[in-house]
């Protein structure tokens, strides 16, 4: 029975690998035309001209990376902060109710987030946030330009709202699983509440928290619907975060159905391949950074 169980789980594990390999292979196989036509420069050019069939994916790569990075920047502190409060500081009933509501947030379809983005967040961004940024930080190229409401920053904000539940839910669970002895030991040494969290709990829960961030990052990189509704879908890279942009997932969703030539289709599939590879690389880098952190002494 044990051997059967072992074999069975081994097959399941193998199936995941095979699936990833198959996806990579199919993406590669169905994008050969575009690879031949544009080579590596596909990743570094920002032209996107379906009429002349001249394509480069830089705008989309830039948009995906910048919105995901910004979203993490906004969501990680908030998500972990909420989790610490719920796990450690909040009264139990409140913690339970909040945790339930946050899990509910994770289940909302992304098109709903997109609609909330368009009808609630975009007007606030256009009328209040962006004019404020332009007025006070407008000397930076990052915050220049007219306040459209939609754009890279708005997309990042909507993404951040979408990924906070992932970070909070998992982080809260791992924080709650920290053994009581661990906390009591720190308290016995005279640690304050903050020191208990910082010294006894966060290091213990680190890999779980890292896992939640990976999951959040994965969702941010691949999110399609909500982003395409608020990012502005412009194929030109602009320095300003307030300007419209585009992401890889969004261009796939927008243009795949109407891609009418073989090269065009292959090009879009190559965008998918690039997204696949970039997701792997970004996750790898994130793992590397967090792995380093683990080696650092806990003080």
């Amino acid at each position, binding site marked *: 029975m044990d051997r059967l169980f072992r074999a069975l789980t081994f097959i399941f594990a193998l199936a995941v690998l095979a699936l990833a390999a198959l996806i990579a292979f199919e993406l590669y196989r169905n994008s050969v035309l575009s690879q031949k036509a544009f080579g590596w420069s596909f990743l570094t050019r920002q*032209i*996107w*001209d*379906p*009429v*002349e069939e001249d394509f480069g994916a830089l705008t989309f790569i830039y948009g995906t990376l910048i919105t995901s990075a910004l979203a993490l920047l906004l969501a990680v502190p908030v998500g972990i902060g909420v989790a610490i409060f719920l796990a450690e500081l909040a009264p139990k009933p409140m913690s339970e109710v909040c945790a339930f509501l946050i899990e509910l947030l994770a289940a909302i379809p992304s098109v709903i987030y997109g609609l909330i983005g*368009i009808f609630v967040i*975009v*007007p606030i961004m*256009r009328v209040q946030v962006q004019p404020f940024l332009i007025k006070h930080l407008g000397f930076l190229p990052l915050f220049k330009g*007219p306040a*459209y*409401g*939609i754009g890279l920053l708005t997309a990042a904000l909507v993404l951040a709202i979408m990924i906070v539940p992932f970070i909070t839910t998992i982080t809260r669970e791992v924080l709650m699983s920290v053994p009581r002895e661990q906390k009591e030991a720190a308290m016995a040494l005279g640690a304050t509440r903050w020191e208990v969290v910082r010294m006894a709990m966060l290091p213990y829960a680190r890999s779980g928290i890292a896992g939640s961030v990976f999951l959040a990052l994965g969702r941010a990189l691949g999110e399609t619907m909500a982003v*395409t*509704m608020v990012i*502005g*879908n*412009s*194929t030109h890279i602009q320095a300003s975060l307030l300007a*419209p942009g*585009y992401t890889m997932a*969004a261009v796939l*969703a*927008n*243009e795949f*159905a*109407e*891609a*009418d*030539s073989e090269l065009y289709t292959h090009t879009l599939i190559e965008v998918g391949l690039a997204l696949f590879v970039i997701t792997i690389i970004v996750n790898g880098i994130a793992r590397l950074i967090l792995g380093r952190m683990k080696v650092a002494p806990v003080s």
Partner: protein
Amino acid sequence: MKKVFVALLILIAGAHVWAAPLLINGAGATFPYPIYSKWFDEYSKANPDIQMNYQSIGSGGGIKQISSHTVDFGASDGPMTDAQLQKAEGQLLHFPTVLGGVVPIYNVDGVVTSLKFSQEAMAKIFLGQVTLWSDPLIKKDNPSVHLPATSITVVHRADGSGTTYCWTDFLSKISAEWKNRVGKANSVNWPVGLGGKGNEGVAGLIKQTPNSIGYVELIYATQNKLDYGALENKAGKFILCSNASVSAAAANAAKNMPRDFRVSITNAEGNESYPASTFTWLLIYRRQSDGAKGKALVDFLDWMLTKGQTYADDLGYAPLPANVIPMEKDAIKLIEIKG
């Protein structure tokens, strides 16, 4: 003996009633989907042994699917190119079914009247060369309207669409610079502007963004009671889009209709013609290897040209002009049915 005979008769009759209807599959353009589903519904009611199934996956998808012959007919808002026709598995015929128009919609501070746009103004707005609402090029044709000195935000479709094809085809015809720099297609490399997904995305962005301008299908604008502007046509007249002005463009363009119906009717001749108009087409193979399906398709085309056209106006589509219908009836005769 008599009883057995009657039982047998009932059995045969029953078998006939229960025979599965002939299923004819099609896929393509989303723009004509409302009228196509009405047509297929009405047609199946009149011919219960035929059932037509239509997937509105977009013109590009329709062309792809009919080219690889995974459906029995395709549908597209833009005519197929020569290269696309060569890739198809056989000779494909185009059959215009109804017409549509694309209208400019806008949201300008303090402007409630319908604006008039000259061809030069419209092309330059979308090229990003006219950037202020108070530009003399716009003011000239709207002398009584107070236009603010605010910058114009252009909104276009982000997803590939036959609506974009019609609009960029119109812009290509009226501006050499647009033709050379951008061109016409279901998606293009827009010089300026924001992209919205679908008609509703474009309309939503325009509603929310002060001093913006974009384009949507006439049907979408009328159904949602959006105000839209008038465009200057080839004859220099400012025409509001309507089923009448779209049909007028088609009737005028039909005078030089090519035999394969692959014609663009944007910027058509004639005083009454609306310049951003287009046919939408069914794509059908000339050689039908399945006799029953071929016969059904021919029968449906005949029905579509006569009875079918009467549904168009109510659903907001411009019906085919009278001079196109006999030309299509001739083209139907080209279809060769095996067996």
